[in-house]
């Protein structure tokens, strides 16, 4: 035994000693931390080397006046103009209106999308006839209603139904919606019930936009479904044994358990809704981009600040309602 130890100590050369210094065994935590850095390295490099410079330059551009130089190199001539780009938009006709319209659409869409996707997710989570088929159909919009397809599904769809239906219904001006649900009927129904005007407008708005709302609920539905799947069946079982009805089970079990998902979805929906190209504010700013890119960039930053504020408010309100299950 002691012989062995001697042997190893004798073998130690200066080189080994150097190796030992460099490969000094760090503690397990330190080694794990080092591995962690290696894993997030691509993102760190991306952020520091590419994203941050772009972010800084974008802000800088929004405070500048940009023009092409005349020497033909395509180099840009950039002059700082202070807050001019941030003041000018408010003198541009249509900007404030577009901003308000965008916010209005946001306020209108977010609750509708969340309620709708939660409802559908709860139904899709139960055993029912043709569930696999319905799931397949409901997630089609996640894959398809993005990018270039959004232009078709939003604007094109109405033209399309009108187009294929011949000239018959294009005169009514209702477009595609009239073929799915008659909006006039809903208006009449609600007008005959004595409910406040705002509610009628809201409901009619939802009915008019039912296509959009369904199409933009895909990811939210997936998130809710995932949340519902993670609720332990034994809780429901205990609930049933105690004699709770389906309604009570939903409000006492499902809703609190799913509330973190509601927060996630609220934030996601706000982001998704305001970065979507068919949002009136986005469309206005994008159109301005062709003429005055630097002013458009400034508009984007202002718009982003407003939305960031909204996200903070929404997250703040929602997180006070959120119930977190204590992990054991």
């Amino acid at each position, binding site marked *: 035994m002691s012989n062995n130890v001697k042997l190893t100590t004798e073998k130690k050369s200066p080189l080994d000693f150097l190796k030992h210094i460099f490969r000094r065994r760090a503690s397990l935590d330190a080694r794990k931390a080092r591995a962690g850095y290696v894993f997030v390295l691509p993102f760190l490099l991306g952020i520091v080397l590419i994203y941050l410079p772009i972010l800084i330059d974008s802000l800088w551009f929004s405070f500048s006046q940009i023009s092409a130089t005349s020497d033909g190199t395509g180099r840009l001539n950039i002059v700082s103009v202070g807050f001019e780009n941030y003041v000018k938009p408010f003198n541009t006709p249509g900007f404030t209106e577009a901003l308000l319209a965008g916010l209005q659409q946001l306020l209108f869409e977010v609750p509708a999308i969340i309620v709708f996707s939660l409802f559908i997710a709860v139904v899709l989570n139960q055993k029912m006839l043709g569930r696999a088929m319905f799931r397949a*159909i409901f997630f089609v919009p996640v894959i398809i209603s993005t990018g270039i397809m959004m232009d078709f599904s939003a604007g094109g769809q109405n033209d*399309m139904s009108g187009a294929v239906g011949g000239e018959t219904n294009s005169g009514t001006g209702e477009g595609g919606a009239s073929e799915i649900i008659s909006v006039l009927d809903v208006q009449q129904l609600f007008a005959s019930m004595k409910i406040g005007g705002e509610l009628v407008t809201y409901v009619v708005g939802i009915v008019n936009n039912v296509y959009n709302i369904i199409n933009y609920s895909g990811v939210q539905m997936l998130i809710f479904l995932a949340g519902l799947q993670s609720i332990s069946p034994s809780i429901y079982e205990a609930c049933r044994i105690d004699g709770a009805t389906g309604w009570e089970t939903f409000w006492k079990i499902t809703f609190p358990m799913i509330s*973190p998902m509601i927060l996630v979805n609220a934030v996601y929906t706000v982001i998704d809704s305001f970065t979507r190209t068919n949002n009136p504010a986005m469309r206005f700013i994008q159109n301005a981009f062709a003429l005055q890119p630097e002013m458009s960039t400034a508009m984007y930053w202002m718009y982003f600040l407003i939305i960031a504020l909204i996200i903070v408010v929404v997250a703040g309100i929602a997180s006070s309602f959120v119930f977190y299950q204590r992990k054991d």
Partner: protein
Amino acid sequence: MESTKTTITKETKNKIQVDYEGKLSTKERLLNKIKASNTWITAIVNVFKFILMLGVSFVIIYPFITKIAGSFMSPNDLADVTVSLIPRDFNIDQYKYIIQDNGYFFHIDDLGQQHLGAFFHTLFLSLICAAIQTMVACLVGYGIAKFKFKGNVAVMVAVVVTMIIPHSALQLAFRQHFISFDIAHVMSTGNMGIIQTLTGGKNIELINTYWPFIIMSLGGIAFKNGLYIYMMRQFFKGVPDELEESAYVDGSGTFRTFVQIILPLSVPMMITIFLFSFSWQWTDQFYTNLFFEGADAPWTMPKIVSLPASLEILYTGHPVLKMFTTVVENTASLMIILPLVIMYLFCQKYLVQGIERSGLVG
């Protein structure tokens, strides 16, 4: 056994008939079942749910039905009031000319040279981006979820920030940065970046190449990459630590554990993210417009959306030409998503599986 009051007869291979003393007739049993009030309510609720789901599915599917119907029509059908969904003058001209004139598979430029068309360019671009983005999301998500290091929270915050800052706000800077590409190069300071300093001020233009997409994917800052990283992180949080610990005890290193144990586990989730990033890149218009421009630009999917020249010549002056143009554009949109739909049909079950397992819970 008692004297056989119970008889079992085999009717078919998988069906037996059991008779015993005091067995109610089928009719009576049915009546009893109907009398139980519970059955009624359940049945009504189920029928209601089914119809509702059917209705919502219809809303999702309907635009595609009209688009498909319209894609087989000629302008004469559009002008005909009596034709609604089933074309009378059935033809595949729209598909034919979109493939031929708009460069779906092969694009012929102004000089008469043949290039790869929209389908191949978009396919390559989407495959490259989706593969890189899935891999990067896996790595970064795993790093954030499973390792405690200084700045762990800061990295997560950075991920969320990249998610909420709209890329439209950055588009001008994005373009400028890829017209003359460099790393760690802040233009506003007027200094040169790292690459330019090393090469002596050489200008690298990456517009009209795939490089902007590849670089952004590698850095995890491309379109919606924040969401992918977030999803991956949530997934890895749900993977029990004991799994890795037992691997460490057996002498496996961190990276070997990741490749041999964690990655095989996360295949459904990776397919989900691959599917997302592939299809979102496939239908993307914003970045292709931003980074591809002019005559040298790769011919991608958004470019096939126009009225093919042959059809325009064929129907010049037709009274419903404008409407027909819309229909043709819709046909083009169908052709854009057709490969996606086929892919979706194959991966659909992984999508739901991946999402369910991820337990995206906060």
